[in-house]
């Protein structure tokens, strides 16, 4: 035997009820008295019975269930009772034909009168001079004063809410056998149904448990209140079990913009590789944006078609003469770089024009001019501008990243090594290289990476070694590795976007769906 039994509130209420009761209680009674629903009463009883604390007896009983119509029928009188009255008023036997006519006129089924009148013993069949007839009996005369057993039983059932057990009738002066006989086939009045009823009582063992206060209650709750926690009441409280497999409410954290996240990853890749971050103005002179990169002044990329030229500021001063003169000479005849140059007359005014920078190489080239001595590694991330219309593929403004390496060992082999390290850091395990042709690098290299999620090779960005026509006028005597990358394209590939405009539409429904770890 257990020393102590801990029950939830519902089970405990059942125990309490049984302790206060004289005899066994039916499950329905327990339900009614405790307010605990039937399934939980049954569960508590079954468990306690298994432990030997309760006795559960099952009793087969017959229940009389009154038809909802029965009350109205009784109020008017059963057909045979109305016929009884009629016979009494006639004072003599009434021929069958006359009685049937009377019944039809009152809307009563004559066959019920002829069946139940004699069956109850209220009437008997006699012969008259007008043929077969019914005559009132002594029992019938008595019946005028007193209800029959089935009528009493029906009334009791109606009073009790529609049903009564046959074995309960005896004590109320009603004979169950006669009720069963009379109502057994009158479905329009009532049905007699077989029921199994559980009677629950405490065993001696159970009663002792209660009397010795070894049955404790544990309250069940959805949540603990602050009082429950601080007072220690939580010890007697069971937290309701949840279905932990059900979905929960959806929540999205406030988070970094997906584009910014890739830009931050890019910055980190460079910083980890020992590169210093540099910046330059978005509003840039044609000198730094084009001329310093040996782009001829009549190059189509410098057209108004492709480049944003500024209204304000329209022109700016050229930088220091130590850079301007060599750049000018290199364009014209190659200066002392060993180049043929472009063979035209360089125009300072064209170079003073102000543009929105078309690439972040404008930033790295300024860094090169400021730090021409090896070793140096620099990178820049920022907005770049192209005078284009908008489409799902192009925006007039987008981000680029550019990096340069100024080093005694800068060469094609170290360019490939640096690119490989960089793209590995950007999450591309497989990287290969192919020749390319870019205006200010020689040799030039295209990086092709394998995108696992798409299952194919994709060209990622351009790179190369700056031409001597670029580096020497800025005072740099060493090869300089350079590469750049458009960041939006990377973001679109990574996030599976098909429309570049999505990135800057600030639609939170879209932004929320971009998981941080993607």
């Amino acid at each position, binding site marked *: 035997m257990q020393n102590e039994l801990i029950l939830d509130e519902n089970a405990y209420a059942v125990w309490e009820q049984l302790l206060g009761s004289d005899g066994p209680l039916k499950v329905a009674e327990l339900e009614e008295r405790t307010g605990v629903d039937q399934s939980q009463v049954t569960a508590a009883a079954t468990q306690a019975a298994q432990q030997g604390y309760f006795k559960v007896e099952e009793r087969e009983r017959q229940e009389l269930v009154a038809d909802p119509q029965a009350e109205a029928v009784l109020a008017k009188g059963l057909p045979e009772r109305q016929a009884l009255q009629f016979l009494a008023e006639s004072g003599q036997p009434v021929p069958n034909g006359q009685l049937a006519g009377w019944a039809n006129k009152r809307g009563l089924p004559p066959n019920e009168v002829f069946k139940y009148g004699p069956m109850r013993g209220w009437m008997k069949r006699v012969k008259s001079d007008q043929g077969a007839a019914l005559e009132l009996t002594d029992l019938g005369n008595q019946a005028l004063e007193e209800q029959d057993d089935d009528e009493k039983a029906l009334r009791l059932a109606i009073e009790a809410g529609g049903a009564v057990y046959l074995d309960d009738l005896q004590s109320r002066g009603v004979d169950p056998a006669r009720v069963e006989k009379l109502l057994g086939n009158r479905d329009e009045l009532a049905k007699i149904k077989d029921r199994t009823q559980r009677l629950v009582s405490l065993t001696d063992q159970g009663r002792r448990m209660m009397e010795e206060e070894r049955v404790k209650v544990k309250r069940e709750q959805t949540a603990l209140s602050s009082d429950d926690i601080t007072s220690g009441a939580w010890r007697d409280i069971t937290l309701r079990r949840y279905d932990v497999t059900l979905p929960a409410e959806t929540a999205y*954290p*406030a*988070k970094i*913009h997906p*584009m910014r996240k890739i830009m931050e990853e890019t910055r980190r890749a*460079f910083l*980890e*590789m*020992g590169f210093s*971050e540099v*910046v330059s*103005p*978005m*509003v840039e002179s044609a000198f730094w944006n084009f001329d310093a990169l040996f782009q001829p002044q009549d190059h189509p990329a410098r057209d108004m078609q492709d480049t*944003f*030229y*500024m209204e*304000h*500021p329209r022109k*700016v001063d050229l930088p220091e003469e130590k850079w301007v003169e060599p750049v000018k000479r290199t364009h014209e005849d190659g200066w002392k*770089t*060993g*180049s043929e*140059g472009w063979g035209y007359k360089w125009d300072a005014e064209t170079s003073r024009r*102000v543009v*929105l920078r078309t690439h972040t190489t404008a930033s790295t080239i300024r860094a090169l001019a400021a730090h021409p001595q*090896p*070793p140096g*590694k620099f990178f820049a991330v920022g*907005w770049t501008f192209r*005078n284009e*219309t908008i489409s799902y593929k192009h*925006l*007039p*403004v987008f981000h680029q990243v550019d990096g340069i390496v100024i*080093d005694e*060992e800068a*060469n*094609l*082999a*170290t360019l490939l090594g640096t*690119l*490989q390290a960089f793209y590995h850091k950007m999450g591309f395990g497989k990287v290969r290289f*192919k*020749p*390319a*042709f870019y*205006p200010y690098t*020689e*040799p*030039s*290299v*295209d990086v092709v990476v394998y995108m696992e999620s798409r299952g194919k090779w994709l060209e990622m960005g351009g790179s190369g070694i700056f031409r*001597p026509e670029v580096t020497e006028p800025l005072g740099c005597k060493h090869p300089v590795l350079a590469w750049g990358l458009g960041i939006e394209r990377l973001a679109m590939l990574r996030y599976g976007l098909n429309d570049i405009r999505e990135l*800057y*539409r*600030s*639609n*939170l429904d879209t*932004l929320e769906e971009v998981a941080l770890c993607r």
Partner: protein
Amino acid sequence: MPIVNIDLEWLNRLLGKPFPPEKVSESLEQIGCDVEEVVEITRSRCPNCGSLVENPLGQEEVKTCNFCGHESEVPFERAGTSKVVRLDLLAARPDLFDVGGLARALHGTLEITTGLPDYPIRDSGLSLTVDPSTEDVRPYIQCAVMTLPEVDETSLVAIMKLQENLHWGVGRDRKLASIGVYDLETLEGDITYTTLDPDSEPFVPLGMPGRPMTGRQILEEHPKGEAYAHLLSHLPRYPVLRDEKGQVLSMPPIINSEETRIKVGTKRVFIDVTGISRSAAVKALDTLICSLAELGGEIESVRVVQDGQERTSPDLTPRQREVDLEEARRWLGLPLNPDSLMASMRRMRFDIEALAGSSAKQDNRFLVRYPAYRTDIRHMVDLLEDIAIGYGYLNIEPRLVRSMTVGEPRPEEQVGQRARQVMIGLGYSEIMSLPLTTAENHYERLRQDVPERFARVSNPKLKAYDVLRSHLLTGLLEALYENRRRPVPLRLFELDNVVALDDEGPTRTAEERRLAVVEIGPDAGYAAIRTAVDALLREMGQEGRYQAIEHPTFVTGRVASFTTDGQLQGVLGELHPEILNRFNLEYPVGLAEITLHRIF
């Protein structure tokens, strides 16, 4: 970037053996081509001029001829399919624009034929006289005669396609240089390059049989004339090529005559390139004839008389330049020796020989002879690139420089990251918006006067992008508008640079990193945004000194500026209800903009 379709069967015929498409693709990639894909394409025939037109990929029907400009109501008749490799044209390498040029390059890298290609030139006996009137119109002309293996439909398409692509890649859409190709059989005697009166000297242009038109009519009515009218319409006289009996060959750079056009069966052609750039004209002609020579053409020269001087065109004399083995090793980082250096150059279709010298240093010098069509070579490094390609990018062992450097982030990025962390912690989501906008959106919608001068673009293609932003508020309000159907409250921020005019700045502009913060909702307003700003400043180790100000964007009496002991400063307040209406917003909005770092 135009795309060219290279017929694989033809390419393999030129290579002398059948290479599988994958091998061809890979080899093309490793000489620098951008291979799009290998596909089956369809051709259609123009009912007007009879040319074969390649159907654009995925298009079953063609209704416009890109040779004569003919447009048809009904689709052109289909004329067969072939397997092609699709390439993006490399603007820098017109010698790789066509099947002939590509076959020449692959001969080298696949080691079928290496070294300098030899293009013998015979004298055609033809002369061309340049009239001085062309001087002010289109002063440069180069020309040649070629005998072609009989022109069939495929080679006709290839010649015309190459011509079109050279117009794009070298001629800058016919402005710098334009090419004409004529059936020599239709010409009589020597040729004159002169000018015509736009209104009185009609001829029958290509695609308009039986319909003589004056120069001006062509510019106004012929499809090709309309397309290129801007190149001539401002001139008093138009350039023209005529033969001895006065027949017009073409009116460059617009159109050839119908009579002289080449067709299936043409055997001998006259080719001219006219232009306003001598180097472009030379490059276009040399590239074209060397490619045609690869297809079996034989080059013949023409005597050109110009300014009383005589010269021979074309001049395909190989150019030469020295290359230094030490420099090649230094620049490329490859373990090159004289043999591998020379083999690499020959694979690129160059000739190379060691320069004899007395000292060991000089033994490292080599003389490279390269073909005339390689006009992209203007420095030794251009040859170094060819050495690398000849060596093979796939054979290069990538490695890293050994020097040690320490990376430093920019201060505005550091402070920006901290600010981002605080704002996300406060439950604000980051957005990013474009830095270009309009004066109306940037100033007027925020109830601000448009300043007299601000960072403004002079030539935007889209009017919506002519102002470089000087604050971040517009982007945030547009974001609220975009998300106006979302439940409130909504909290957003943006971190980015803004630009202001400043004569002291490096490009007469000042740039700074800002943080802008917005909240919309029933409880949004000055108090809530002030709480956010205070939290930010506290986390940044700063204390704000607030001061009431007047600001048209905000509700009077609910707007402040603040300063700190550091660089942080800013404005915050409750947005003016008129602006709420303009952005279709239905709840109060609190807004703050903070300068985090002045960059320059």
